[in-house]
């Protein structure tokens, strides 16, 4: 897992429209600038918002990536719930403090 670099990529995309445009034009080149596992690249490429959440991506970063990928708010929330059902509890990061499933 290289959760740090997944989040760093999303941080850069969220705050820099030029990098965001470059990413959606040529994702593979941008992926090459970060230390990512194959699973992470696949989750980012699809995108699989649910898997990214389960990997531990901070939702303050993930929300913006979902939005720029075309998700509206209900779709984004549902994607995370589906991710927990499909992949299990959050593996690391802020939301892994309890059972990894959030507060409910």
């Amino acid at each position, binding site marked *: 897992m290289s959760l740090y670099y997944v989040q*760093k990529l999303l*941080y850069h995309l969220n*705050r820099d429209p030029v990098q965001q445009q470059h990413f959606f034009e040529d994702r593979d080149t941008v992926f090459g600038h970060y230390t990512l596992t194959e699973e992470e690249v696949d989750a980012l490429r699809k995108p699989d918002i649910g898997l990214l959440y389960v990997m531990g991506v901070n*939702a*303050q970063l993930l929300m913006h990536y979902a939005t720029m990928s075309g998700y509206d708010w209900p779709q*984004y*929330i549902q994607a*995370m719930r589906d991710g927990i059902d499909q992949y299990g509890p959050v593996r690391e990061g802020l939301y892994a*403090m309890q059972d990894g499933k959030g*507060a409910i």
Partner: protein
Amino acid sequence: MSLVYAGTCCHSPAITSRGEMADPQLRRQLLEAFDRQRQAIEDAGAEAIVMVSSEHFANFFMDNMPTFSIGIADEYYGPIEDPNWLKIPRTTIPANPDLSLRLINQVMQSVDVCFAQEWKFDHGMSVPLHFLTPQYKIPIIPVNINCQSKPMSPLHRSWALGLALREAINSAPEKIALIGTGGTSHWPCTPDSGKINEAWDRTLIDHLINKRKDALLAYTDEDTYREGGGGAFEIRTSVCIAAATEEQTGEVWFCEPIPIYATTCSILSLYQQPLDLLT
């Protein structure tokens, strides 16, 4: 001059992005409370607002995350979010780098802080400013406390930062308002978004307005996360303002859970300048 007004307010982006979806009466009461706080700041003659918030990865990341940071830019810019989503137009926001420098130098006498000469405001600053200085007429000194990524500083350091800010503000000739933003229960952007722990929020707010230092510093991150969600780590900002205004009992100007805004919205007045100090 000194501190002329202090308070806290909510900063949920939904207050502007999903504004009209709330119960109309609750929204009207919330906006009236925001306006009361705006008026209090203006009536106090504030020449600058020191705004203590917790940004959400707009400027700071885990490659070099500052525990505390104070802006020292010539001007600021915001919101960083899509303005069509947040429904707040992007603009430059006035600063006062000379005042920033003096405050930072004074704060550093007791608390280590980073400084930032570039700062893009996210909703944590932009939503409160939209209501408290809608014409952006008052220079802003932004202060950030890391509440997003662990490790986070213990609450007694937020208390120490509040004391240091108060001493620095009192050493400046300008009339200064101090505002903290965020901090009640919320589970932002997660599958639990919209969940609110009203009882936990009301207990916290009672401790804040009564400046119960021991009770406030007794909150642990584990308890806070369990009862208030990841967003409640932002209690660091309101603890900071409570410390800075310890000598006065505060007032609750608004406190109601608004689920579509995903949190208990609150407007607290924590310090008003005593009449004998008014000029």
